[in-house]
């Protein structure tokens, strides 16, 4: 779905006061009215002194459901999970001071992963701003660098306008979080409501339609390429499910290989032969080698993040690079590209597909075959291979079994599957071992790498998809960062499954310390962990544990049938490393595979 500006553009920002016969409402009621008109049915939040008028207005209506999280960070990640899985804008409601500062991590996460969020924060009354009042924080000051835009509303007449504009800013162009700071006296003040259609928004107007001439040139380059590769990212997911369909159609028409970033998983079906797996630091050997050796690279909605490129001077040295992005500042930021195309990923892919058909391009069969022969040699390396054990559960094995059970569940129950993750080794293994055939099914913290993201995101995802099966693949360290959200899951009867790969270590930290810091394991082992089974039960959920390979299948099967929030404590091999890996400072052609790990010279890095 193309993201376009739906409201009329007006010059200047002097917003006229609409003199209408409509009745006077309080600022808080206007907030609710505007949210309802924006199509919001679910919000995530936590009350407090400075937002009480809005909570009062919420109490008096039935159109918006409020999900009470147990921490504002949890509310923010829940809104992200909701937004990512439904394609709608997530809404957060928190109080001033600590409410707002607690939400900051979630806002920053949404900024880095381009998730549309509108966050309404309460503020002390306008006459107290700047006085170090109780629960006062300079919210707009604090959130300026971690939002796409923010507002401090000092006049009740502006509330409706600002909210309508905030939804446009959050949801169009490159999506992102927007904060609206509302002082308490403004929430009480009376004004009249301004509808979405009458709202005046000022300058924001992103370019969404790609230039036709550049598209023509890009398609010509793709048609003439001998060793091309598609490299797609979260931008394709953000462009809506239709963009993923068009991408699949186009890539299949060309017959060329495709890889994607962590954020882009699911835009192209992993079940296709053309899928190389994820690229980057823990990407597959074939994906990274294809990037290194390609002659034409088609980057769509990705941003050449350092976890993708490795050493930029060794990044795909001989390729002609085409970069499609809706954000002009992503062009030439990390990697110089030869053909930039500014626009919505969906519109650009559609235009390329049309152009490909119009010009009746055909892929050079011989060259393509040669390229695929090359790729198949890399595939034969089998980079995700690991040593199985007959008693101890390897984390990769646990995910392989999860995958098998999910496939069975899909056939049997026909329900949609959603995976969220925390951050660390388990996240990379989930990306490597779980296949995604559809967009909006994979919620993970990519850019910011926020431990504690997965559980609240799963809650948000389940709220948006009540009939879906939502699994948070977690680590025992990450899950403790937002474990309080168990309580939220119980309160709203959300049967999310928390699949903990428990190795007692902050696994990724331990891995880096082993490989890059002389095996000095500074503060990465958790000496005391809760009993996760009892913990789940204490919250009113279900706790399961698998300690050996024999117990694993049974436990997963049980997990898939529970109707309450369930923690599965999978006790996995403690010192397993996540491979392949590009050590920082190395290029795509310098990956270390599991088999090389022993020989890896730890002094080099």
């Amino acid at each position, binding site marked *: 779905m193309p993201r376009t500006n739906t409201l009329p553009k007006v*010059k*200047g*920002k*002097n917003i006229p006061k609409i003199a209408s016969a409509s009745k006077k409402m309080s600022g808080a009621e206007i907030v609710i009215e505007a949210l309802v008109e924006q199509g919001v049915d679910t919000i995530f939040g936590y009350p407090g002194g400075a937002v009480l008028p809005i909570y009062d207005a919420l109490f008096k209506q039935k159109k918006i459901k409020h999900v009470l999280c147990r921490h504002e960070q949890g509310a923010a990640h829940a809104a992200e999970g909701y937004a990512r899985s439904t394609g709608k804008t997530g809404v957060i409601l928190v109080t001033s001071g600590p409410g707002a500062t607690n939400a900051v991590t979630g806002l920053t996460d949404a900024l880095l992963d381009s998730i549309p969020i509108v966050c309404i924060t309460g503020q002390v009354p306008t006459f107290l701003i700047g006085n170090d009042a109780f629960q006062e924080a300079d919210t*707009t*000051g604090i959130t*300026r*660098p971690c939002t*796409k*835009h923010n507002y*401090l509303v000092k006049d009740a007449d502006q509330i409706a306008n600002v909210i309508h504009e905030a939804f446009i*800013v959050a949801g169009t162009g490159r999506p992102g979080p927007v904060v609206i700071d509302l002082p308490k006296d403004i929430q009480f003040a009376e004004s009249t409501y301004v509808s979405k259609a009458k709202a005046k928004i*000022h*300058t*924001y107007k992103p370019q969404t339609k790609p230039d036709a001439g550049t598209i023509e040139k890009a398609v010509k380059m793709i048609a003439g390429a001998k060793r091309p590769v598609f490299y797609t990212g979260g931008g394709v997911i953000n462009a809506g499910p239709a963009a993923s369909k068009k991408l699949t159609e186009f890539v299949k028409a060309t017959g060329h290989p495709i890889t994607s970033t962590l954020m882009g998983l699911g835009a192209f079906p992993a079940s296709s032969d053309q899928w190389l797996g994820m690229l980057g630091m823990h990407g597959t050997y074939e994906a990274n080698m294809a990037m290194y050796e390609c002659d034409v690279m088609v980057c769509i909605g990705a941003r050449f993040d*350092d*976890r993708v490129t490795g*050493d*930029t*001077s060794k990044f795909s040295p001989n390729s002609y690079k085409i970069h499609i992005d809706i*954000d*002009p*500042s992503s*062009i*030439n*930021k990390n990697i*110089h590209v030869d053909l930039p195309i500014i626009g919505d990923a969906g519109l650009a892919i559609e235009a390329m597909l049309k152009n490909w058909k119009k010009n009746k391009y055909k892929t050079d069969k011989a060259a393509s075959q040669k390229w695929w022969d090359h790729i198949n040699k890399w595939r034969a390396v089998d980079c995700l291979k690991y040593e199985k054990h007959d008693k101890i559960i390897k984390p990769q094995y646990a995910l392989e079994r999860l995958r098998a059970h999910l496939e069975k569940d899909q056939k049997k129950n026909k329900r949609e599957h959603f995976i969220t993750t925390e951050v660390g080794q388990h996240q990379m293994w989930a990306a490597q071992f779980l296949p995604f055939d559809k967009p909006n099914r994979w919620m993970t913290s990519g850019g910011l790498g926020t431990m504690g993201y997965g559980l609240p995101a799963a809650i948000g995802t389940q709220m948006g998809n009540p009939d879906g099966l939502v699994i948070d693949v977690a680590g025992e360290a990450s899950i403790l960062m937002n474990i309080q959200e168990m309580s939220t899951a119980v309160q709203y009867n959300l049967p999310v499954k928390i699949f903990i790969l428990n190795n007692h270590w902050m696994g990724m930290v331990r891995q880096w310390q082993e490989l890059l810091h002389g095996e000095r394991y500074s503060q990465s082992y958790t000496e005391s962990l809760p009993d996760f089974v009892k913990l789940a039960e204490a919250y009113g959920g279900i706790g399961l544990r698998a300690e050996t390979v024999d117990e694993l299948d049974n436990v997963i099967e049980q997990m898939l049938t529970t109707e309450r929030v369930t923690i599965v404590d999978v006790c996995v091999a403690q010192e397993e490393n996540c491979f392949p890996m590009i050590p*920082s*400072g*190395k290029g795509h052609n310098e990956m270390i595979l599991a088999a090389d790990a022993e020989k890896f010279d730890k002094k080099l890095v």
Partner: protein
Amino acid sequence: MNAAPPKPVKSGKSKSVYGPGPGEQIDERHTLSVLVDNEPGVLARVIGLFSGRGYNIESLTVAEVSRSKNQSRMTIVTTGTPSVIEQIKHQLERLVPIHKVTDLSVEGPFVERELALIKVKGTGDKRIEALRTADFFRARVVDSTAESFVFEITGSADKLHAFIDLMKPLGLVNISRTGSVAISRGAEQV
């Protein structure tokens, strides 16, 4: 923009994630003209962008230019490698209250001026010499006491530097400068 940015110079050094960045491009000085909504916080957004992303500001001036449209114009003089300058422009364009970013150094000829107020203290020959020099530079006397002058001078940064250098031995006390303001030459509205 008519000039395509040059390809980044390949550095032989390792550019690891946490290692040194590309360091072999040459810094350029650019004058940017930025049209913004005149609303609270817009200056903080711009400054925060520069400090947060590690860009340089050589000078920045801002004042309202249209009351009816409620717009201000900022003139920002910045230095950086061509790729950094390109980033600065794109990042500025991303800010919601920013209407237009024009890189005057790229768009064509432009006029750039700066104003300085310069206080000089002295009597006798030095005082006369200061006044004579001010005359050559077309600096105006805007305040005078028996032993001091305040000169007002406009011109390029180079001219101001030259004048200030000459005033140093003549009893320079204080300098206050505005930083550059700039506008494109010709009839076009940029």
